[in-house]
């Protein structure tokens, strides 16, 4: 239960971190909070030659905003988001989700960018940011930063659009309007454990956002556009009626009981739509 030997380099800047990665010939990993990576190292499932630590590197904790978008540096921790150290542009969704990630001792170290880059299908940010229509900003693949829509950033379990020497620098979250409502429900066998199904609903007609999403699948999260359209037209109760049907279409490879688990998570989210922001 000890990691195999590796070299550890502390990057001082974002640019230096991407240079170190580029020079490592694909056998390096970025160490942010390490709350998913270090267990894999301890189990020796992962054995990279080099770890590039970015905890103290400049360029990962920038905050920038305008009236439509709030950009969060990738290095902010779940606990900082939970505590409201930074503004929540989503009227409470980010704070509520952050509170439910693993345990406080893990949230104090784990980061939003690290969680996205690791791309565990059950990770809360992978589903939440996809449902919000966020944009993931990636540096290191050229002069200009690359920008990926969160819903297509994750290709499958632990697989993303990130190149070998690229690092997530920020996440641009759209601001939800005052009339927006959201709901998040995850099914876990134990509090803080990885979810076996996640349902997310974001309804913001003013902002042009109506999304229902099923997450914690064995691969990438999936949007449920028909359910979302029904929600916008006829409300959550009517939307609940077609969830199971749409899940069967968009996740045809899952067993029947797993499909039902995802349908339950989405229906429970729909049933509590808007309660989060009233609390």
């Amino acid at each position, binding site marked *: *239960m*000890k*990691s195999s*030997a*590796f070299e*550890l380099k502390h990057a001082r800047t974002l640019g230096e971190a991407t240079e170190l990665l580029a020079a490592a010939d694909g056998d390096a*990993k970025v*160490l942010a909070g390490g*709350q998913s990576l*270090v*267990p*894999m*190292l*301890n*189990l*020796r*499932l*992962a*054995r990279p030659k080099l770890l590039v*630590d970015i*905890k103290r590197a400049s360029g990962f904790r*920038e905050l*920038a*905003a305008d009236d439509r*978008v709030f950009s969060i540096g990738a290095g902010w921790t779940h*606990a*900082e988001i939970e505590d409201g*150290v*930074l*503004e929540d542009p989503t009227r409470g969704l980010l704070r509520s989700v952050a509170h439910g990630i693993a345990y*406080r*001792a*893990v949230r*104090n*170290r784990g980061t939003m960018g690290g969680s996205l880059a*690791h*791309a565990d*299908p*059950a990770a809360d940010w992978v589903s939440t940011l996809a449902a919000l229509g966020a*944009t993931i900003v990636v540096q290191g693949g050229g002069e200009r930063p*690359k*920008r*990926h*829509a969160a819903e*297509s950033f994750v*290709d*499958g*379990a*632990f*697989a993303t*659009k990130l*190149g070998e020497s690229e690092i997530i620098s920020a996440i*641009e979250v759209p601001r939800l309007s005052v009339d927006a409502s959201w709901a998040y429900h995850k099914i876990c066998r*134990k509090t*803080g454990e*990885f979810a076996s199904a996640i349902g997310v609903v974001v309804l913001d007609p003013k902002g042009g956002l109506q999304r229902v999403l099923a997450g914690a699948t*064995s*691969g990438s999260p999936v949007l449920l556009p028909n359910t979302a359209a029904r929600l916008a037209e006829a409300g959550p109760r009517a939307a609940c009626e077609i969830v199971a049907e749409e899940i069967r279409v968009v996740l045809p*490879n899952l*067993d029947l009981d797993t499909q039902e688990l995802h349908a339950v998570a989405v229906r429970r989210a729909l049933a509590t739509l808007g309660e989060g922001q009233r609390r």
Partner: protein
Amino acid sequence: MTQVSMTVNGGAVVADVEPRTLLADFLRGEMQLTGTHLGCEQGVCGACTVVLDGRIQRSCITFAADCDGADVTTIEGFDDDPTMQELREAFSEHHALQCGFCTPGMLTTARDIVLRLGDIDERALREELSGNLCRCTGYVGIVAAVKKVAAGKKPDVAAAAAPVISRLDGPRSPPAPSSPQTNGPVTRTPVPAMAASVGESAGGTSIEERVRVAAPAEKVWSLLSDLQRVVPCVPGAEITSLDGEDLVGKVRIALGPIKVTFNGQAKVGMDTSKREGWLTGRGRDAGQGSSAEGSARWTVVADGASASVIAVVLTWKLSGPLAQFNRAGLVHDVVRRLAATFAENLEAAITGAAPPRRKALGGLGLIWSVIKARLFSGS
């Protein structure tokens, strides 16, 4: 070795540590502070919880070399802490420990709950304690003890320093569109009646992928019956030697940061009359000690005179660390993508088209170059 200086329980410490030394091992082994306990060593049980720069953290998933300049407080550092004094008394009074293994982490977490959140209801308290496992008490005594100490306490509302927010400079380009679907000379038409299926078969998990190819079955089979061509179509697979039905080779698979190379042997065979081929083998990853056994079966069925369907069934069974890690179908997803890429590679090998670029499974570019070299150098 990396030199680190930190403050541990109020005293300055300077030490040389290996990059892989965990903070917990440094505290226990170098500092002789054995009150920090190691249970799971993967961040689940909470026994190793310490206070690092004012925040509780897991010392089993934190490297000592990463703690340069940090201020660490272990259970030994709380002797004179008034909240911890109250908690110790309450734990004793409520029988909140039996064997004591979880207690240092439990107390450290409890202190954080009391100071940060104050008097919270039992449901919230149990949720906050859920990251610390106890195998003796059933938690009733622990919850009662923390509740007693938290009663009447105020949460710490000290506002964190307001971070600096700058204006987003526009104009920003829109996000890159989702990757386009496969395009090329082959029409990949998913046939509704032939949706990919997944299931458990005897002793393993299996997955089936079907792809329609715009070429007659005869032509498809004639290419598929050459194993030197088929095997490299499996992403990450390489043939070391092929002698009759005995094949020696390796398969490299990447699952995020997890990279395994299974070296192994396989038996291969085919039945030309049925246009069917199969491969059964087993392999082991030397570095990690995980093993895999499995099979691949492929058939070509005519779909009219000028098209055919290739069906690939992959069955596998894992053992060792990788199997223990596999949570709810994660490996499943990888094998599903592997099967899909295998089908695409077969298709490409038949038509001579370059396979769609995909980096998810790693190594595909290399494999493609191998296929191309073998297939098209002479044709």
